[in-house]
């Protein structure tokens, strides 16, 4: 039987209360939301926090809304609600692409975006999705609030910019015109972790790629931000040839390890193919948007 090590449990009744509890209880305290990353780690004794602060009652952290030119997603928003969000489907369809293949519907009823991002498992999909979408995350601590981009957010394997006394409260997706995005994943069976997955977003302005975001899951010790390919794409017209080149960069710049899901050369090849596909679909979606506007 897998049982977590003993801990003390309390429920937060406000965001400020949760942050105050983190401050009061010190670095051995952890926030728990959906629990579908943290509890498995605790059951395997890979994590043994002394205190859990349950934030499931903080309904004010569960939302997807448009505000000040951004889509804003509360940290407690569950996978199922990301999947069902029409706002996200309209502006960032890569979320729905990813959410249909993250775990299974029952798990998606519990897991949250904040938990997924804070776990920062390199094989997890939403970290790549948010990176490609150029998300900014809001981190609140006793000293106040700060907003960081995803490259700054990802500090190392399972490590983020969220410090011991901090709470991730919101994910912000800046809205820009001409956006198209897609998430491509290959897994061994339904609901499994990716062998490799690629998130892409393109912002196309007058037939030229104004900006691009590409991030890879499961082919490195952290989410791989494909900055070299993003630079290649900027200022060019979308084409199959260009996307194939970006795919080649993905194969080169990822750093997969061999495991039960496949050998290194296979994963590199897959990262390239999925990058190409994700860019192709992103461009098609961006041009559709342009046509509709």
């Amino acid at each position: 039987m897998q049982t977590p090590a003993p801990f003390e449990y309390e429920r937060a009744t406000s965001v400020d209360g949760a942050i105050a509890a983190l401050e009061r209880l010190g670095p051995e305290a952890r926030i728990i939301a959906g629990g579908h990353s943290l509890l498995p780690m605790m059951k395997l004794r890979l994590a043994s926090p002394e205190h859990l602060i349950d934030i499931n009652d903080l309904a004010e952290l569960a939302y997807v809304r448009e505000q000040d030119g951004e889509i804003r997603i509360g940290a407690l928003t569950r996978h199922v609600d990301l999947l069902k969000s029409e706002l996200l489907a309209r502006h960032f369809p890569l979320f729905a692409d990813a959410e249909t293949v993250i775990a299974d519907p029952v798990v998606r009823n519990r897991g949250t975006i904040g938990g997924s991002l804070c776990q920062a498992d390199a094989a997890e999909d939403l970290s790549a999705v948010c990176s490609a979408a150029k998300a900014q995350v809001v981190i609140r601590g006793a000293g106040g609030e700060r907003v960081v981009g995803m490259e700054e957010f990802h500090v190392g394997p399972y490590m983020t910019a969220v410090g011991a006394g901090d709470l991730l409260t919101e994910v912000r997706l800046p809205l820009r015109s001409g956006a198209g995005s897609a998430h491509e994943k290959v897994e061994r069976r339904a609901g499994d972790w990716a062998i490799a997955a690629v998130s892409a977003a393109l912002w196309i302005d007058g037939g030229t790629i104004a900006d691009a975001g590409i991030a890879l899951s499961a082919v490195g010790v952290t989410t791989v931000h494909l900055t070299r390919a993003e630079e290649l794409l900027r200022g060019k017209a979308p084409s199959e040839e260009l996307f194939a080149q970006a795919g080649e960069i993905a194969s080169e710049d990822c750093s997969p390890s061999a495991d039960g899901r496949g050998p290194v050369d296979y994963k590199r090849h897959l990262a390239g193919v999925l990058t190409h596909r994700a860019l192709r679909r992103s461009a098609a979606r961006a041009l559709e948007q342009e046509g509709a506007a």
Partner: protein
Amino acid sequence: MNVSMTVNGEPVSHEAEPRQLLVHFLRETLELTGTHWGCDTSNCGACVVLMDGQPVKSCTILAAMCEGHEIRTVESLEVDGVLDPVQQGFYERHALQCGFCTPGMLMTARALLDENPDPSEHEIRTAISGAICRCTGYKNIVSAVRWAADHEAAAKQGA
């Protein structure tokens, strides 16, 4: 700590260690052993119960997190000797062999039909994709859920 919740319509209140998982609270503390404890890793779905009407994996939720919530287990399906249509469907369509996955399958199916009374085969397969059956190959399970949907629709029309 004391944990209070509603289980199958009845308020319950018991001492529980904060680390006790809901599946063990149900099976050991409340002696409701209908909910099965399977893989312990939120993969197999044998432990699925409804929390406020939504299917959840009870091996990956602390009992303490259910404080104040409404839990529904497989024991609630049959009422006064009358099987729930999903149970009857499993009987009619021979949707189980060893029966280990069945409690989770039934609760997952119940939640699906509560939300979507007329699911397509694809929707049924998606709904149960978080539940693993090692005996039947799913075909009869899908057929059983469809049987339940048809009979619920017919019963509603008759009423």
